């Protein structure tokens, strides 16, 4: 049985000057799955994200999204093709309110569908998204007045407003409390299982990664060192040494 991968990264190499950030990296992500990309700091995870969202141009390699290459798509075209993401270090619109941040994301979805909504309808739709991510109470706050965890959730809300088919999440759980992580866990599972989204997750909170991922790819120093089901990766000796520490106790 062969399913075409939803996103397929082929032999990706990224260099910054003399430094090779990502080396000959390949990864397939199946439709409707949650795929985790993990690895120590500086392993090149965010660099891979930046290639998918077209901020970086790789030296070589290709990225196929639903079977077609992304290499000709400009950065602003990825949202229109259905890819949304969040950043490790927040990239919000700080001068405006929480709900307006989401409305800017909504514009991308409306543009793609060739639809127009009245400002009132847009606001209602944006508020519905905030309801889902648990930010409804903060809708009229300035984006930069939120704490870090909530700003991360706001980025996720804005990404959802784009109505993506593929969602790239760069450390969404950073700064969240345990209760909020559990809510995020439920939300992501909901999005994938019920709405058929595909999610690629870069995350250090292992509890989240292990509980919701369908597949895990491990990067270390720009190289893929392991790939497989959560249980397999957890037991991989190389992974334990490179990433989880020699004792491996931090895994669960």
């Amino acid at each position: 049985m062969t399913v075409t991968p939803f996103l397929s990264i082929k032999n990706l190499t990224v260099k910054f000057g003399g430094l090779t950030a990502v080396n000959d990296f390949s990864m397939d992500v199946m439709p409707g799955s949650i795929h985790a990309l993990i690895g120590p700091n500086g392993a090149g995870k965010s660099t891979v994200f930046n290639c998918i969202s077209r901020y970086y141009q790789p030296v070589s390699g290709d990225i196929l999204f639903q079977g077609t290459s992304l290499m000709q798509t400009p950065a602003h075209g990825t949202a229109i093709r259905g890819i949304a993401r969040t950043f490790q270090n927040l990239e919000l619109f700080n001068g405006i309110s929480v709900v307006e941040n989401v409305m800017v994301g909504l514009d991308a979805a409306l543009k793609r569908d060739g639809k127009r909504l009245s400002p009132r309808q847009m606001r209602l739709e944006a508020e519905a998204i905030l309801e889902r991510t648990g930010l409804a109470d903060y809708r009229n706050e300035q984006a930069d007045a939120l704490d870090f965890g909530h700003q991360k959730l706001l980025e996720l809300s804005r990404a959802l407003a784009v109505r993506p088919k593929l969602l790239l999440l760069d450390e969404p759980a950073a700064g969240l409390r345990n209760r909020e992580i559990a809510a995020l866990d439920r939300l992501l599972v909901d999005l994938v299982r019920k709405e058929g989204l595909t999610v690629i997750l870069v995350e250090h909170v292992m509890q989240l990664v292990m509980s919701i991922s369908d597949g895990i790819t491990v990067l270390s120093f720009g190289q893929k060192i392991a790939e497989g089901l959560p249980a397999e990766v957890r037991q991989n000796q190389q992974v334990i040494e490179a990433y989880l520490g020699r004792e491996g106790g931090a895994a669960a």
Partner: protein
Amino acid sequence: MDWQVIWLFLQQGVASGLVTGSIYALLAVAIVIIFKTTDAPNFAAGELFMAAAYVALYLLVFLALPFVAVVPISLGIAFIAAALFYRIVLQKIGSSAAVTVNVVIATLGLSFVLKGLVRKTGVGDVPRSFPSIFGNDTVMIGQAVLTMQDIGILVLAVLSMTIFFLFFNFTRTGRAMRAVGMNPKAAVLVGINLRRTRMLIWGLSGLLSSLAAILIAPKILMTADMGSVVILGFAAAIIGGFTSLPGAVLGGIIIGVVENLVGLFISSRAISVAPFVAIMLVLVLRPQGLLGGKVAVKKV
């Protein structure tokens, strides 16, 4: 000076100040929208204003076109010229924040080019006067005397700024422009085309400068150096905080009113100093400008 005279001067100063102030406000808005989205001040703003006035003069006097045709054509030419300058020159330089100096030098270059072009045509060799759109019949408002041209300036400037604010706040393109101003990286992420948006911003800025030029030209002497008026647009932008649009409008009105009051109460020779005293006062008392938000605390 008795109270009656003071009251009369106050009325006249505020009324005339609102008129010139609305022009400064237009120019300040044109400057601020570029600064917010391109991260560099446009030092060709004055010469864009000057060239736009000459384009309108040429159409009006040399081609004898009626005002109804001159205004839209002039605005259109200014829009296209400014947008093309962004597309052809600044886009190539790379308009990212990393090369702000290069962008600034390029705008200075444009200012010389425009001034040179106007001089080259010969039209700018002698001072000229620009016909008034609305005529010079006078109206009394309270005890203040304004001309119909003054009233026209005020009404059109306020109207166009209102339209601009509605556009900026309630349309998809306007929202995209604000998003680019706040965070270009995130704007790209949600599908906003930076190049196209910045081009539009430059075009709009050109259009606003052109409108200001057509409105104020009848009240000033036209020379190739008339662009120096725009320094007051910069002054207005600084008073307002340089990144705030309402601030730019407020700054414009303050400068206009201060100029006129100083001219009436102190001396007409003090007029040119007054705006800069106002800037210094604002910057000393409120370094971020009137509506410039909080003073940024740099992370260390």
